[in-house]
């Protein structure tokens, strides 16, 4: 009897041992997340039709159609391209082929980059197809109004009908991710010096920078942030090429042209919202090349513009402003960016057409007026 029980147990044990040896194959087949490629997405999206046309004309549509490849496409919407005077696909016919290729390749990364994989910090660098590094920044600041930017362009959130407040970004395709942008990314392959030189309407600024000994360094490492008014802005304030050439460098503080750039800073406008001062601090002034003056950008009295204040007043609530709009009401005292309003509630509502030109050694912002009034900065 006992023997039979033990035998039974032994058999049961053997069975258990044998059963445990079975290795079931739990590997499930990979489920496709999306059915289309990036090309399909661009071609079928009415809001991206202009960019799709640019991609097609640049000959990259086939590459973006390969299901096995991986890409991340920062796709400017039609309204973004409209800001750059592109209204019809035929407008790209006026672009030199190389420029168009460079423009399209600027917006494409050769890897699949999900929003959640970008570190929660500023200026994470990723190379685009031109081999130029784009600056991707994430931030939880400012109540999440600028959670994700590329070279100072605020990436459009994925629209959602759900009540969740967590922002989602990007449309995942078979071969990558597409992030729609409200502005084009403007990357210039040369230095800020070369950028200013390549545009004919910066001759007054260049003359001034040369006069005060700043021009040579603009070709060096930097990084620089340049605030560049056009020639007409100087002319309007009575500063001609001739009068700039005759300025007495012993009479003026060097900020008279040193106020047009920051070094070593590269500051996108959205950085100001992504890295705000701690509560209780009115503004974070930047040091200009002159020790006596500081620059305040998109903060406190300057609204959505840029202004120069005396260093002594920079940390107080009563700023001594030497910019042309010093007498305006508080919040509108800065020089606005070109094509932007004086004062907006949020930096994200800036139009963005003339700000954030990324050069190899810095950033250039086009300004609507001069930044320093010469008669206010005499020694």
């Amino acid at each position, binding site marked *: 009897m006992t023997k039979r029980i*033990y035998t039974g147990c*032994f058999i049961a044990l053997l069975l258990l041992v044998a059963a445990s040896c079975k290795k079931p194959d739990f590997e499930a087949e990979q489920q496709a997340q999306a059915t289309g490629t990036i090309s399909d997405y661009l071609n079928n999206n009415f809001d991206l039709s202009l960019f799709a046309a640019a991609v097609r004309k640049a000959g990259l549509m086939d590459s973006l159609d390969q299901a096995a490849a991986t890409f991340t496409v920062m796709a400017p919407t039609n309204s973004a391209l409209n800001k750059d005077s592109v209204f019809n696909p035929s407008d790209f016919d006026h672009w030199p082929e190389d420029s168009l290729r460079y423009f399209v390749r600027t917006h494409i990364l050769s890897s699949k980059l999900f929003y959640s994989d970008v570190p929660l*910090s500023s200026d994470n660098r990723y190379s685009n197809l031109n081999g130029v590094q784009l600056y991707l920044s994430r931030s939880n600041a400012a109540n999440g109004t600028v959670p994700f930017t590329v070279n100072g362009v605020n990436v459009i959130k994925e629209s959602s009908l759900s009540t969740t407040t967590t922002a989602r970004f990007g449309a995942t395709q078979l071969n990558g991710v597409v992030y729609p942008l409200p502005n084009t990314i403007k990357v210039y392959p040369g230095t800020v010096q070369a950028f200013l030189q390549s545009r004919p309407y910066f001759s007054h600024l260049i003359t001034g920078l040369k006069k005060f000994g700043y021009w040579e360094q603009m070709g060096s490492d930097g990084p620089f942030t340049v605030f560049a008014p056009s020639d007409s802005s100087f002319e309007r304030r009575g500063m001609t090429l001739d009068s700039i050439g005759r300025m007495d460098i012993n009479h003026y503080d060097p900020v008279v042209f040193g106020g047009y750039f920051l070094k070593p800073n590269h500051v996108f406008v959205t950085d100001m919202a992504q890295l705000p001062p701690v509560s209780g601090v009115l503004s974070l002034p930047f040091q200009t090349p002159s020790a006596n003056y500081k620059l305040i950008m998109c903060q406190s009295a300057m609204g959505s513009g840029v202004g120069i204040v005396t260093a002594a007043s920079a940390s*107080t609530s009563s700023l001594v402003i030497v910019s042309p709009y010093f007498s305006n009401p508080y919040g509108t005292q800065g020089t606005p960016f070109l094509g932007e309003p004086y004062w907006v509630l949020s930096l994200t509502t800036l139009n963005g057409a003339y700000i954030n030109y990324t050069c190899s050694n810095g950033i250039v912002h086009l300004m609507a007026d001069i930044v320093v009034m010469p008669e206010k900065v005499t020694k």
Partner: protein
Amino acid sequence: MIHFDTIIQRGGMLLCCVLLITTGCRKTTYNVIPEAAYLRVFNSLNYDVDVTTKDQPPPFLAMIIDPEYDASGLVTGGKIVGDHLDQRSAYAGPYPANAGNTSFRNTEYPGSKKVLVGPILNGFNLSSWAQIPSGRHRVLFYSRPISEAPFFSLPERDRKSLLVDSTIDFTPGEVYTMEVLQKTVATQYPLPITLYLRKEQFTRMPFSDTMLYANFYNLSAEGYAAANPGAHPSGLQGYVNANNKCRAFGDTMNIYYSLFTDDCPYPYVDGSPTGNTLIPGFNNLWLGTVVRSHVAGVAPYYSVPMFAAPDTTGGILSRQWELFILMRPGLFPLPGPVAVDGSNGMAQANAQFGAIGCSNGSNDGKGTTSALARRSVPRVDFTDLIASSWLPNLIRYTASGPYVQRSFSTISSIEIINNRVYMMSVQRSYPPPGNQ
């Protein structure tokens, strides 16, 4: 005839024996560092990271001792790696309180790193010091992005921001405190950085158990006080948060101390007030002078009495707190709790005067919210504030023997670095808690 169950029993026993024999053979090898020196490292680069400084190398470091390089000259490894070295916290206590911290941010080395640490040396517990092999070593510090990724998994371009490259000769059995400091004030990035190494002397000095000891260093960047005069843009924020932030102290300052009664309870209870009553006879007593310098060397330890409590706790729980007043040579503190006469009292440190309060109100150096601290921080006539910045009390309150809380004196180094003050404490070992 052998029964079937007997076979199973015997087989089972045999199996057990085999198992016991095989596991019994396992030899545990202990990691031993022969001729070890003891090293504690702080990242004292305390500049704020904001939009104006975002192009600076982040003050987040990787320490690499005896680096290894690949053919292209890229650092690929090291004998000792102290990764994720974050800006130091206000208070580095006698015991590695953050050893079990799971955050990747390490406010000191060894901190939360799992490495061999020092023994109890002459009664001092060195568990906050890592053991390192003595002899000549090359020490590198790299700035690295603030992320969880280990330094050697970072992309190549993120492993090239070298801040410090130095060779140091460590003597066996010595206790070293190493700090990465800002050398001078500069508008160029990266800022000039210097490495500071202090061969600690506390393990070989006689200390009394009934006295509190503190020494003072001013390790600020050269020219910092001159470049940052005046009030803080955010007003008295540093003070009312009872944290270690303030303004720059002067480069050469005399130190005086005052003792006060009725510190708030430990651990800190939100809003509980810190007393402003002086202990008679202990007002503005001169200790010595602190001079801004990056020269290595141990500053003299000053002793401050630790009074037994006059209450019902059997005299084991002292509730005094300490105030260190710094005055420019030629200025003298006024008698009374507030050393200067003027609006806000000592609230904002400057080149002329400042004061460091050591109280439980600082919540172990973490600071408090301003609303609560406003009720906690001591003041006279509401407006006259007694100190400019706050550090933990020099007295530690610890469970020991039959007592739930008992006061122990510490030996502390107070370091003024730019616009912050820091404290590092060591303590003699004490009887463990128990019901004797």
